[in-house]
């Protein structure tokens, strides 16, 4: 039996994905997907606050993770048939792809900003803890003969096979190949489309072990880079979306330090608290609903300080931060001297006028192309 371009096999379960069509799932993949910790990804939006600008951008880390596994399957199977990846490791790579975002905080990068600035904690480190220490995930992997530490090594780019590391994280990796297409589909940003089939069916590995493409696919990859540029400008660093992410990050910071509220946020306020929750099997509770529900609860019960409640109201009513200064540059040149100074001066001026640090949220991001 054939469905679309995929052959459907008896005894294998399928899930329909809006981007890739039917995705086959074997026993170990199903076992991982059925854990409470993986199901949590159904309740973590892929694009945090992007729906404030693109109402359709409400897809989740769950569908993205399945999609990344599908792209990895296609590429790893091809490379395996050419002797560039060990046949036995194709499933290892698929599991790493499936679990690569398992440690994302609620609202993806919005809350990650709080943990990054407060503790230097990134979601990759949380993913490592989840894969190695979460009882559901680690047990599911071990039961099928996969070592959690090896899966985590691929996710973190620390596997001894450099090809595996570059398949999951490089300029042309399976993560980006899925999210650019998926995010373009859900936002409706037409410039994000790429020739995915061309890339995944011609990708190879160079003699150093890096992911590479043959000359015949150069145009497809150029179009991928152009799409990436457009998506960063139109979606990932859109000024309004970035503003709401900063607003939520500030709200979370206030709630985590407010004696009247922090009891509701704990243990998800520090790296130690998160790790403890992972080890005790309660990490799956920390999702968009948990944080979103808490925002409503704090306002409805009048808990904590007025500042946090005011910011939450602004967030809920889409009356958040407005961009007062924006500078976008291209090329490899350093950020011009005056830009960072201008941002710093403005923040100081706001402070002098008696407005607190939660009124203005400076944001400087540098993205390297290629």
């Amino acid at each position, binding site marked *: 039996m054939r469905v679309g371009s995929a052959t459907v096999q008896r005894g294998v379960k399928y899930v329909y994905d809006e981007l890739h069509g039917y995705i086959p799932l074997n026993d170990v993949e199903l076992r991982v997907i059925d854990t409470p910790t993986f199901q949590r990804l159904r309740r973590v939006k892929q694009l945090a606050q992007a729906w404030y600008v693109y109402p359709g951008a409400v897809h989740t880390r769950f569908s993205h993770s399945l999609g990344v596994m599908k792209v990895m399957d296609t590429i790893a199977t091809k490379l395996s048939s050419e002797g560039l990846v060990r046949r036995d490791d194709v499933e290892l790579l698929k599991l790493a792809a499936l679990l690569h975002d398992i440690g994302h905080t609620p609202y993806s990068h919005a809350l990650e900003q709080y943990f990054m600035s407060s503790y*230097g904690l*990134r979601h*990759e480190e949380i993913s490592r803890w989840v894969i190695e220490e979460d009882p559901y995930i680690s047990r599911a992997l071990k039961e099928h003969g996969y070592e959690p*530490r*090896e899966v*985590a*090594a691929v996710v*973190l*780019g*620390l*596997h*001894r096979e*450099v090809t595996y*590391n*570059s398949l999951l*994280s490089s300029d042309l990796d399976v993560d980006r190949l899925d999210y650019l297409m998926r995010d373009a589909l859900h936002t409706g940003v037409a410039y994000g489309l790429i020739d995915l089939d061309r890339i995944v069916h011609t990708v190879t590995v160079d003699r*150093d*072990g*890096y992911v590479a493409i043959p000359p015949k696919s150069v145009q497809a990859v150029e179009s991928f880079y152009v799409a990436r540029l457009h998506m960063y400008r139109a979606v990932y660093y859109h000024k309004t979306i970035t503003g709401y992410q900063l607003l939520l990050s500030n709200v979370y910071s206030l709630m985590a330090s407010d004696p009247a509220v922090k009891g509701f946020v704990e243990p998800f306020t520090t790296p130690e608290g998160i790790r403890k929750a992972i080890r005790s099997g309660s990490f799956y509770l920390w999702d968009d609903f948990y944080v979103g529900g808490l925002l409503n609860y704090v306002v409805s019960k009048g808990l904590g300080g007025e500042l946090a409640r005011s910011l939450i109201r602004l967030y809920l009513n889409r009356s958040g931060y407005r961009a007062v200064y924006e500078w976008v540059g291209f090329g*490899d*040149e*350093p*950020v011009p*001297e005056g830009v*960072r100074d201008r941002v710093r001066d403005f923040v100081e001026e706001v402070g002098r006028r008696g407005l607190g640090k939660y009124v203005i949220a400076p944001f400087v991001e*540098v*993205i*390297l192309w290629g």
Partner: protein
Amino acid sequence: MERRCCALLIVKQVLGRELRSQEGRAAAHSLIYLVQEVLGVKLGYRFRWLARGPYSRALSTDLRTLNPCTCSDPAAVELPRELSLKLSTLRVGLAKALTIAASYVMLKKDVYPPMGDVAGEVARRFKVPRAVVVEVAELLSQYLRRAKPSYS
């Protein structure tokens, strides 16, 4: 930002013109890897294991886009400069010695599954005799015993 300014300063002081070559740029990642993971200066970079040794995407961005900025921690600069002076006496040259040293440490410390013959793997990957890798590892170890007695 301050810590990253220190990273930038370290790289510029130690590698200077070598940064123009691909080998020099790879060595910059190795140098900062050693500074952070071995000398214990917290710079906040996350490194992955790639064909030319440790690599950090954020460091790559910083090296290409940060303006010259101030690093007020002399120790952050002094230790790596001392180590690099030692490594520069080796016959393979400073850039390659840094890459060999960092790759050796990373394969021993961070990379999984573990490799049986780390020195042999580094030698094969960077096309140098195994004896050179052993020499670099021994020099690094001697330096660390003196500079950081707590390091094992």
